[in-house]
């Protein structure tokens, strides 16, 4: 009987703290656990008794990379409860600040966290020594995203200008126009990034996933839309709890999600591009087609291309919104307090982020539910690893371990979000 254990203690280049333990016995996986051991953060519990208006800023602290996503899902859920409709230029500004966050987050992941896997580098410092231009471009792209978030959010980390009903203050047309040249340059870098990532060496690996994303009749999804999948799911955000179930597994402090009666599913850029290819900006779509990236793409390693396609789209969309912007009279819409339950689901950089709040007639939160994208992807990450390792047992230990980490990073996991951390044990017994 031949058995072995490959063990990786700390997974690098993921946001937060986690591990992977794999035991292989007689050429088969005896046990595989994608372990998230970052302590639980109890955000849902300590939201109780806080005011409805605090939800966007408190939940934004769940993540330093995607605070806008938390602010947006919290706002939409509260507005759903209060019967508030935010439209026109305020709605466009919300899409714009989301473009900023996608640009920041995707640029960081594509160039500094994921690309090293494909190029055989341990980290971004090594890439910078051999390919300084790649890192310089990444930083330029990220800076463009930061500029958007800073202008609309008040500061680049943990922005403070978003509120239920809109914003505390809105920019002038001139202030927004000042970002145009920076965003055009960023868009050029993003187009190049699609072409460059398409030339990377991709493992020959596909799985038949259920992709889940928002879909909106008129636009590529950021804030609004129905939850759809390639297997017929088509529901409103308020139906989420009927179709999606969270469960606790002993090896993870992040709850695992699955679709009732069907199992694991896939959220994030690859799911969004697959389900909304027709809604991408013409340039984003043409650039994808030019590198033969067409939906449905079932190779999770190619999510790096999907992320770059979304970078092009985000720059394009930001430029469109800025060109059409007229400063609104009021930074936020007025509303009356009422006891109700509200549901919000928006597209965080890593996939759908669901919030549900029940509030009383004074606007105090009675209970809260937050389902971040990384916890939703845990099932697919484990299934990918299981299949990838089974098909690649002949690989030397160091190479197999490397590609396991790469498999996890395909999802850009944000573990702090999901526990609201990664350690890798790959064990061949």
């Amino acid at each position, binding site marked *: 009987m031949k058995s072995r254990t490959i063990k990786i203690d700390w997974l690098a280049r993921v946001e*937060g703290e986690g591990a992977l333990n794999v035991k292989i016995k007689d050429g088969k996986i005896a046990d595989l656990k994608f372990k998230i051991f970052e302590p639980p953060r109890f955000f849902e519990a300590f939201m109780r008794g806080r005011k409805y208006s605090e939800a966007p800023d408190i939940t934004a602290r769940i993540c330093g990379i995607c605070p806008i996503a938390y602010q947006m899902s919290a706002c939409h859920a509260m507005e759903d409860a209060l019967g508030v409709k935010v439209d026109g230029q305020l709605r466009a500004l919300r899409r714009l600040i989301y473009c900023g966050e996608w640009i920041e987050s995707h640029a960081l992941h594509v160039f500094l966290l994921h690309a090293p896997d494909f190029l055989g580098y341990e980290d971004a*410092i090594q890439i910078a020594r051999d390919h300084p231009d790649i*890192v310089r471009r990444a930083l330029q792209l*990220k800076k463009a995203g*930061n500029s958007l978030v800073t202008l609309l959010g008040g500061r680049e980390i943990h922005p403070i200008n978003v509120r239920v009903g809109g914003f505390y203050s809105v920019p002038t047309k001139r202030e927004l126009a000042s970002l145009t040249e920076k965003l055009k340059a960023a868009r050029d870098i993003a187009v190049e990034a699609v072409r460059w990532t398409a030339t990377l060496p991709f493992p020959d690996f596909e799985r038949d996933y259920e992709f889940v994303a928002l879909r909106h009749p008129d636009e590529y999804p950021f804030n609004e839309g129905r939850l759809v999948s390639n297997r017929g799911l088509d529901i409103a955000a308020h139906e989420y709890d009927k179709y999606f179930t969270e469960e606790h597994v002993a090896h993870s402090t992040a709850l695992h999600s699955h679709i009732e009666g069907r199992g694991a599913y896939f959220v994030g850029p690859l799911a969004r591009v697959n389900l909304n290819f027709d809604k991408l900006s013409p340039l984003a779509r043409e650039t994808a087609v030019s590198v033969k990236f067409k939906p449905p793409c079932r190779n999770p390693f190619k999510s790096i291309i999907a992320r770059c396609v979304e970078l092009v789209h985000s720059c394009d969309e930001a430029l469109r919104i800025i060109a059409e912007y007229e400063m609104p009279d009021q930074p936020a819409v007025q509303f009356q307090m009422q006891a109700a339950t509200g549901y919000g689901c928006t597209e965080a950089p890593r996939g759908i982020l669901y919030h549900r709040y029940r509030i009383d007639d004074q606007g105090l939160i009675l209970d809260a539910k937050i389902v971040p994208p990384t916890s939703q992807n845990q099932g697919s990450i484990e299934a990918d690893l299981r299949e990838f390792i089974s098909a690649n047992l002949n690989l030397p230990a160091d190479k197999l371990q490397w590609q396991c980490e790469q498999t996890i990073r395909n999802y850009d996991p944000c573990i702090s979000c999901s526990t609201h951390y990664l350690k890798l044990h790959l064990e061949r017994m």
Partner: protein
Amino acid sequence: MKSPVLTIGVGNSDRGDDAVGLIVAQRLRQRLPAHVPILQTTGDPGCLLEALQTAETIILIDAVHSRWEAGLTSGTTGASPGTIHRFAAHESPLPADFFRCSTHAIGIPETIELARALDYLPRQLIVYGIEARDFATGTGLSAPVEQAADKLVDILCRTPECILDVCPNAQGS
């Protein structure tokens, strides 16, 4: 056009002694003329990489915990709290075990190495690390770190690389 000198205070104002870089920057601000550039930052790598390209000489101040290991309380290892360490980071990498490492962010040593690889380092980069005692949640410096902050402000206003001596006629940044 680069400034002759820039002082950068790095820290987290909500994590005890981790705020010392920010506090030194604030006290220097009170002692130095308004045209002398001083930056306060959380240490965001993007912000730091940009700032590192803006001056010929940069003085960076941050809290450190020498031979840092996660979970250790200060004083159990390394130098005594309030010790002021000085590194010529333009000459060689910072000791990685002096700075708190995080799985949530790229740290100061990594950012400086990234800047070195990208040729973004200033001619001179002096890093002052003040040995911290307590990184717990909350505001306020521990007594030894408080004293060290005042001492470093005095040093920076007196020594050869002092901001004023380097750029007596600086015209802002």
